[in-house]
């Protein structure tokens, strides 16, 4: 049996990788929540849709990379249409209706997935250049997992740059801070919402595509990850990108270490940690609203 130090190191590393993946899963949700003030219950379904579109594109073209490129874009466009045509009319009626509507979308998308691809799940192999493991001294780790971690870092960095360094991002951040003021400055807040929703959906679908070789596909996969996405959002602070990363890493590491020392408790510990932190800081780690 390996010694304690080696074991903890392995699980810590695993926790960081899994944590960045959780952050990626949650980032789209926190963006939409921050911008539109609604918990997007369709987030899981959009994640699933991304994965299933990848499956379809893999079948058509045999290329994972083409799927990675195209599937999230398709979801981006569909989501913007959805927001513009069906969600926007609900804003004046109240946020509860928007929330319920996103829940309806999640059920509809899930059932559509079953209608089109059936109730039985699928597996996807990682693309061949990313197959196999990498030797890291103490242990070997799947190449594809490391790839997804790095992509998550890159995506979140790109998102951060978009929000912090572009005019568009500044408008979005302002929208997260104070919608009324942004509107008063003459900016079309509704168009902001449509693009913001699309961007959040794009990130959800991207996560779904990237996760397909790791988690496979099945119609309820969205329902499976939604609680974790919400944990990342609540723990990190609504609408906060840095918060999402911190939260993801915390729950990733917590889960991996718990699996090592108390295997039965891996899932419950995540929620216990979230509850504990929120008791002390209800706005989340980096929440300011």
């Amino acid at each position, binding site marked *: 049996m390996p010694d304690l130090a080696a074991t903890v190191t392995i699980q810590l590393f695993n926790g960081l990788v899994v944590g960045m993946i959780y952050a990626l899963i949650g980032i789209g949700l926190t963006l939409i929540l921050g911008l539109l003030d609604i918990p997007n219950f369709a987030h899981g379904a959009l994640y699933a849709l991304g994965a299933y579109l990848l499956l379809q594109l893999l079948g058509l073209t045999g290329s994972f990379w083409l799927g990675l490129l195209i599937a999230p874009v398709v979801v981006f466009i569909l989501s913007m249409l959805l927001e513009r045509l069906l969600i926007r009319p609900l804003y004046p009626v109240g946020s509860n209706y928007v929330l319920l509507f996103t829940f309806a979308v999640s059920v509809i998308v899930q059932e559509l997935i079953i209608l089109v691809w059936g109730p039985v799940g699928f597996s996807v192999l990682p693309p061949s250049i990313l197959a196999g493991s990498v030797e890291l001294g103490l242990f070997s780790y799947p190449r594809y997992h490391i790839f997804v971690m790095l992509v998550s870092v890159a995506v979140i960095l790109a998102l951060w740059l978009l929000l912090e360094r572009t005019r568009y991002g500044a408008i979005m951040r302002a929208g997260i801070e104070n919608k009324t003021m942004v509107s008063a400055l003459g900016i079309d807040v509704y168009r902001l919402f449509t693009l913001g929703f699309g961007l959040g959906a794009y990130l959800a679908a991207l996560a779904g595509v990237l996760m397909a070789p790791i988690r496979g596909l099945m119609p309820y996969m969205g329902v499976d990850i939604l609680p974790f996405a919400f944990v990342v959002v609540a723990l990190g602070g609504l609408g906060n990108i840095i918060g999402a990363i911190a939260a993801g890493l915390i729950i990733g590491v917590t889960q991996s270490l718990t699996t090592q020392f108390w295997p039965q408790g*891996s899932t419950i510990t995540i929620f216990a940690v979230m509850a504990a932190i929120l008791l002390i800081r209800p706005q989340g780690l980096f929440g300011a609203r």
Partner: protein
Amino acid sequence: MKEVTRREFLKLVGTAAGIAGLESAAFGCQVAGQVGGPGPQPPQEVPMLGIWPFTGAFADVGPVLDRGMSLALEEWGYKVIGRPIKYVKRDDETKADTATRRVEEAIETEGVKYVIGPWSSGVALAVSEVAKRRKVLHFFSGGTEDISGKRCHRYSFQWAAHAYTAADTVIKTFLRENPGAKRWYLLIADYAFGWSLEKYLKLVGEKYGVQVLGADRHPLGEREFSGYVSKAVGARPDVVAMVNFGQDAIQAVRTFYNFGWQPKQPLIMTWSAGVEELVQLEPEMRENVWVGTNFYYTIDTPVAREFVKRYREKYGEPPGYAPAAAYGMTRLVLRGIEKAKSAEVPDVIQALEGWEGEDLLGKMRIDPRTHQTLRPYFFLRCKKKSEMKDQWDFADLIGTGDTPQPRELNGCQDIGSL
């Protein structure tokens, strides 16, 4: 500012919980609504309930269980001893409270006397209690030994092989093919069926010189197995044996594969659905995977061959353990009714106790003392992609075992009265 956020968060959580509840209720109503007939049934009819998981952790299995039971009923023309059979279906959502509620409701409103299912062992123990209280015949197929063990009673029957039989078949056959592989690591689903098999893998393992280096339990519905795999791999076993099911098992196999465990090292799925799980994996992920199962479609008995043929003709794919179990249990209940020449539950129970015959799995017998079906368990070796003759040619059937649980280990002291 702080207060507003807390309120917002509680609202969020409250709504989420409410919505989760709504969704389950909505689906349940949808499945229940499929079956017709308000009010009490004409006395002629024999209502039989299939309590299956159409949603929840085992949602992919519900539809095929339904197929299996329907196929058996079709073969009999939906009639037994000259009376029409009414097939009642309910979704248990893979939850004990939903299952017991829906079984009670089916007994109340449809007059159900025969309950087949559920699929989950945890849910089955709850349903078994209802069967005992309401005096309806209950046939279950699953890994928990308690149904024919310490929770035994006259109304519940176990179709699946006993966990002891399964463990014995798996260990014995695997070691025959891999003689040196004595250091085992176990990954167990943390609930009833997992605990039973874990216990017998360790007990029977001792008999064969197996050293269990470690056994980790994972929560039912777990999807993140990287931590478990790292831990198991770190212990450097010769083989990892898993006791889990459905999506949990599939995800675990995927993760072991991604971490490079198979095909270099062997992975055992101790109690698998066979076809239903293997079809959701890529062939590369299945290489050097060994599978213990209650049914495989290449079993060579007259009943099995006929069943597989009809199932394939109708559904375009071979049946796995789930539909075979539903089919097998329904057959036994119908044969029991026929033997008793009565559809009264006590008569059928007595007809089934000690029943012996050739059926789906070959020679089968129902132990009157425990209501355990004594029958073979099967062990498969998955094929490499290049060895597969068609998309369904997942594995070779390489061994069977039917060693029953030794009497002294059985927890059923007194099966009781009717």
